[in-house]
């Protein structure tokens, strides 16, 4: 396992290098002078010169990249032009909120999705199975931001059961109950599409394993239905399920941008959109970098989990 871990960690290096090049290039994609784009048409010549010098825009591209990546490696993501603060601190504060939202949504989609998938696989063509097929089609077709608005209208604005937006109540809030009540609607919105995907994949993986000879043998031995389904069925279906959950983690990290915008959740997604509209490139780069990095780490975690679940993978 240690050798496998070392190899996986080594493989991270080219991926991270590629990711950083792409994030760096984002700043230079736009035709024209980045300094002019950031400061707008009303900027004075001195302002432009100062910004160019600050960001090293007069240097050749590869020198700029090396300069930037050197700072990033030391934890310096630059200063936000719009907020006049260090990017790293701001992004990390906001990232905590995104992580809370994404992790809650992932827990919801995994537990509900796996439970639904197992139930559907043990009773194929039952009402539950058909309902989950319809739900998955709906889940793949529904814009999450729209679902969020509909849930907000129904549960917050009409019924008044839950708060409509933000992370804490503006007055008198701040405790755990307050946070949880604010978390419900965004987490459910974000998890909705994933639940259906996890459920469908769990169903098909379970149907595969439940049709295997060892399952028939286990049944013939008189192993209880529950043990057959959970130990022999689900136990052996875990690798594809972990794959899809890992993919969903990435999808949720990215998709959180839309959900955060709907519910004014103070996460890294809303910060990034504000940064783009304010043309604050260092801020946008910082946001993308932190989220992409966490996505790469999630993928690494999933790979390690595979190797733990299925020892054959370690020796390939």
């Amino acid at each position, binding site marked *: 396992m240690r050798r496998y871990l070392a190899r996986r960690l080594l493989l991270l290096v080219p991926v991270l290098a590629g990711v950083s090049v792409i994030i760096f290039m984002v700043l230079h994609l736009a035709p024209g002078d980045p300094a002019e784009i950031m400061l707008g048409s009303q900027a004075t010549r001195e302002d432009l010169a100062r910004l160019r010098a600050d960001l090293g825009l007069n240097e050749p591209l590869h020198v700029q990249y090396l300069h930037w990546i050197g700072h990033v490696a030391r934890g310096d993501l630059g200063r936000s032009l719009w907020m006049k603060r260090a990017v790293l601190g701001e992004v990390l504060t906001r990232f905590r909120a995104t992580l809370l939202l994404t992790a809650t949504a992932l827990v919801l989609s995994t537990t509900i999705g796996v439970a639904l998938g197992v139930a559907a696989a043990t009773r194929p063509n039952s009402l539950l199975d058909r309902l989950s097929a319809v739900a998955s089609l709906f889940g793949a077709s529904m814009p999450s931001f729209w679902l969020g*608005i509909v849930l907000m209208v129904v549960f917050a604005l009409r019924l008044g059961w839950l708060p409509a937006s933000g992370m804490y109540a503006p007055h008198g809030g701040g405790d755990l109950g307050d946070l949880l009540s604010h978390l419900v609607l965004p987490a459910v919105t974000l998890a909705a599409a994933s639940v259906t995907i996890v459920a469908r994949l769990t169903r098909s993986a379970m149907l595969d394993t439940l049709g295997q000879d060892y399952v028939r043998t286990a049944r013939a031995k008189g192993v209880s239905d529950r043990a057959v389904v959970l130990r022999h069925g689900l136990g052996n279906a875990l690798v594809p399920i972990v794959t899809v959950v890992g993919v969903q983690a990435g999808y949720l990290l990215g998709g959180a941008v839309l959900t955060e915008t709907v519910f004014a959740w103070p996460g890294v997604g809303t910060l990034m959109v504000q940064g783009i509209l304010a043309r604050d490139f260092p801020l946008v780069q910082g946001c993308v970098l932190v989220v*992409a990095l966490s996505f790469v780490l999630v993928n690494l975690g999933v790979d390690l989990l595979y190797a733990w679940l299925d020892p054959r993978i370690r020796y390939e």
Partner: protein
Amino acid sequence: MSEAGAAAVTLARAAPEARRRHALGRLAGRNRLAIVGALALLLAVSAALLAPWLPLADPDAVDTPNRLRPPLTAGHTLGTDEFGRDLLARLVWGARVSLTAGALSAAAAMLIGVALGVLGGFYTGWIETVVMRLTDILMAFPYVLLAIAIVAGLGPGLRNAMVAIAIVGFPFYTRLVRGVVLSLREREFVEAARALGASDAVILGRHVLPHLLSPVIVAFSLDVGAKILATAGLSFLGLGTQPPTADWGSMLATGRQFVILSPHVVLLPGLAIFVIVLALNLVGDALRDLLDPRVG
């Protein structure tokens, strides 16, 4: 043969027969849904194409005294938005933008992805390495996040949003096509063609590309819906279509502020996206059942 034995044989014969009939019934049932989906698509596409000639109000005509009228108001079948603009007209004109954006960005992603997939699968060596590392790196980003980052660089706007979505979307086709090409490369008919002295162009054009047709058609039909959702998402964030032009995503975004008083300004464009993407998914699923022998 005993009566019981005969009955058992009949039963044994009947079982696969019944199963086949059951599968056919399911396919027919799915196809019925797919036909409904295809009809919905046809309706939306023809409405979008014929928008200039349909008896619709001007989608940009502001009429503030009549703002936020509910559906079924005289003269405004689906009501009006916050500026008193006719919602039906805006939905139909918005369909032009949303459907074109989805189809074009999916087509661009497909063209780039297929070309790179063929190259990466057919030629080993540095071409394969470059193509596969590029797709790996692009896939190391969460999908939506990378699209947003590219729009950030290019600047907000519908065309840039489409470029971003195409860039983010092509690795999916590259992976798919490369896998198929890799297995085709080893097949006897390709080797035979090579032994007969056929050039790479002939092998690719006559022996490889035809085999890519059905997996790519299936992937594309399911992808257009995903791309419509993605462009609507970017427009919703204010990074796609810019006012006064409307697509369904930007209509949803601007309608949000009025959702308490007039939920229809948000519900209708969202419903339009939902129905069209659902229709595309139904048609795509039916196409997959039809073209992919491994499914069904």
